């Protein structure tokens, strides 16, 4: 099976490699993997790649399965089946603003910086609040940079921001998920179930 693994910025998380190895998958090589490589061990080929590439590869039938963050699944709205919560990389997409009273007047349409513009628009749209969404990768820096007072980003990144930010709302819980494209789902159903059955207990253990 060819499996795309989202690496994020800092390679494959050790906790993910732990879960995969506990399930008996040959994932040792993933621990030192850099992006853009094909790592073949037995009949498994790992492809460390950006989360967006893992999704695109699954949708296009290049990967039989993929491992990506729920944050990206929510943002990209990609046409994949979400098969299993791997229980690794647990985090949350949150809305945060600088702690303390708002500096200056409250705008009728506050600005919110985020690497997840679609999630943000959907969330505020559903709750009836009007915000101006600004796509900005390092959103946690946005208040300090004066780009926007509000931030929608992962809780872990918000906590590490230079300006003290207070979480106002949790928008969605996220973690790494096992996904498969529609074609793989139809063509490799048995292999996918076998993979699920190996991963399920190791995730719980």
């Amino acid at each position, binding site marked *: 099976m060819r499996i795309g693994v989202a690496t994020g910025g800092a390679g494959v998380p050790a906790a993910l490699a732990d879960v995969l190895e506990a399930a008996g998958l040959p994932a040792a090589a993933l621990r030192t993997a850099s992006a853009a490589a094909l790592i073949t061990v037995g009949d498994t080929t790992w492809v460390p790649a950006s989360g967006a590439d893992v999704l695109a590869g*699954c*949708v*296009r*039938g*290049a990967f039989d399965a993929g491992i990506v963050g729920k944050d990206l699944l*929510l943002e*990209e*709205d*990609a*046409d994949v*089946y*979400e*098969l*299993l919560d791997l229980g690794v990389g647990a985090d949350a997409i949150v809305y945060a603003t600088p702690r303390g009273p708002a500096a200056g007047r409250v705008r009728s349409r506050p600005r919110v910086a985020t690497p997840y513009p679609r999630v943000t628009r959907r969330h505020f749209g559903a709750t009836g609040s009007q915000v101006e969404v600004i796509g900005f990768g390092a959103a946690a820096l946005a208040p300090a940079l004066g780009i926007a007072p509000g931030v929608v980003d992962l809780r872990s990144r918000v906590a590490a921001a230079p300006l003290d930010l207070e979480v106002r709302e949790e928008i*969605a819980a996220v973690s790494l998920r096992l996904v498969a*494209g*529609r*074609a*793989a*789902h*139809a*063509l490799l*159903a*048995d292999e*996918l*179930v076998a993979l699920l059955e190996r991963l399920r207990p190791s995730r719980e253990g």
Partner: protein
Amino acid sequence: MIPEGMHDVLPPETAELRAIENALCRRFEAYGYGEVRTPWLEFAETLEVAEDDTLEAGYRIYDQQGHELMLRTDMTVPVARLAASRYRDKPLPLRFFYVAPSIRPWAPQRSQDGEFQQAGAELLGLSSATADAECVTLLCDALAGLGLKGYRVALGTVAFYTALVDALGLPAHDREKFLEALADKDYPLLESIAGNAQADEAALKALWRTLELSGTRDGLSQARKLATSDAMEDAIQHLVEVRDLVDDAGFGDAVTFDFGLFQDLTYYSGVIFEAYARGVGLPLASGGRYDGLLERFEWDVPGVGFAISLDRLHDALEEAGAAPAAAPVCLTFVGGLEHPQQAMELRRAGWAVRALREGAAPQARPWLVREGNSYRLELAEGAATSGSWKDMLRALERA
């Protein structure tokens, strides 16, 4: 420059696509389907009866009288319109097929081209599993007939989900929203709707299990275990009947069950199916039963059909090394433009001849060059012969 989402098709791809179309047409005809064409433009209100959300952004224009017109976004609705308006007093069942382009707003995130060519079949007037099975069989036969190997047709049913959702005991308003979220595979939204409406716990658990394990070989036995109402049992039984009939026709190996299959077209009412092949992540074909559609044209007749995406099928055939031979090998004839009688003689002998002016550089082999009254023929690199016109004809006959 052309608008975003549109594309040209060049040789030899166009010829390959044409060969695929022709093969599909012959298959459809072998099952007694009759080819139809419908206009590019329909009244917007005609297409809107489908209540498909992709329609909202469809291309609309106004005619001189101020009627709102729309470019068709698929062929199922126009064929239903055609049948309801012109075949009302004809004996049922009716069988139609088409090969036609449609236009939708370009949506790269859904891998949706602006203009796309489809070949499809519609079987109207039968509501039985036998009719569903004929459509699935025809689809398998059409794909297999083109030499595509290892394709799969995933078989699912809308009825199973609607029955499952009924068992949740949601209020009518939430039920609609829930079905929409199901089509979008928006699981968090599903959870929040079910949570807020205090849905039946057991039924909800069954739903998650179905979504998770859809598509597997033992999906059928899983679904059987999950069935908690007669409606669910019936939906499963119907699928089994369809699969058995397709098996009798010789295509059982290609069929898998996918209880997670749920399409966003609101007009599907029963069996739905999608075809996949290795190397192409997106479905090559999709179809299903749409019993409520003709009723929207005030003609209560059931229907089932499918459409094959020609571009994706072409990709799949290429991937499988089974792309149909395009145009015949073409002989370049330098001097053929000045001597049309000789070019014609070659064409009558069965050669495709690309005529060039005398003295022009022959670009692609095989080529025949006329120099005064002598000729030089090069069938392949290093395989040249020279001589008279008669020599050339003899050499070409042997080739």
